[in-house]
């Protein structure tokens, strides 16, 4: 598993395939300098139970949001198992850069509210641009 050291300012976990989370965090850092809000995890080479353990070990106070890459991915499945007994947890799958940028820039409200708003922003950022 590749993972970043958990920063004290972390508000959310980002987990996905390969270097997905580290890549997104790198982009967030380049744009905003606020990637320290994320704990980045990869599911590479991990059994389902190990992914779940890794998530649980990082869900300390102040972290109540998990962003995952693919709705059908093993990271999302593990996160859903974690969320089953942590009702305060907000899980957002299908995360993209626009979602994370909105999340780190949100100032008011709880992390859960920020995650819900960020998900809407991420969804709206998917645009097909064609010549007309």
């Amino acid at each position, binding site marked *: 598993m590749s993972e970043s050291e958990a920063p004290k300012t972390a508000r959310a976990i980002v987990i996905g395939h390969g270097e997905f989370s580290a890549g997104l965090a790198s982009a967030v850092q380049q744009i905003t300098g606020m990637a320290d809000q994320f704990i980045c995890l990869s599911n590479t*080479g*991990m*059994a*389902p139970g*190990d992914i779940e353990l890794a998530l649980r070990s990082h869900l300390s106070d102040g972290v109540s949001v998990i962003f995952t890459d*693919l*709705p*059908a991915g093993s990271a999302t*499945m593990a996160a*859903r198992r974690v969320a089953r007994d942590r009702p305060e947890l907000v899980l957002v799958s299908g995360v993209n850069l626009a979602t994370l940028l909105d999340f780190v820039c949100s100032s008011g409200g709880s992390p859960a509210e920020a995650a819900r708003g960020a998900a809407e922003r991420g969804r709206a950022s998917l645009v097909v641009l064609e010549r007309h």
Partner: protein
Amino acid sequence: MGILLYRIDDRLIHGQVVVGWGQPLDIGLLVLVDDLVASSDWEKELYRMAVPPEMEICFADVETAIRDHARYAGDPRPGILIAGDISVMHRLVTGVKAIGSINLGGIHHRAGRKEKLRYIFLTPQEERELLALEAAGVEVTAQDVPGARAVPLAEILGGPD
């Protein structure tokens, strides 16, 4: 069409299955064989929500899968049958007697297992089960995604150990 891939993968339904294999094979049917999942509504819902709408997923314990295998094999949609471990697939192969090849897609590290490939870790007992399957005429290869090379069992067992 029937079942195009009999896969052992401890992650069961996940990206490699739904997207990696599912898209190029145009999979319309997933059969998840697992006694625990088949007995839990929560587990079934967990996996059902991970499957795109163009795919149907059905759940079976091993005995049910043996009984219903002819129906899966006769389904007009291309399908993948998934088991979470070698012993489940071994029981299925023994009961069905019509499975010619098995794909090892992901068996990850745990106590007692040794690394054979990047995504395949086996205990001595699991190695014996795979050898027994091959001795029974079943082709066993490891291949995590369609673009990768299918690694034959002899090569797997001669892995980095």
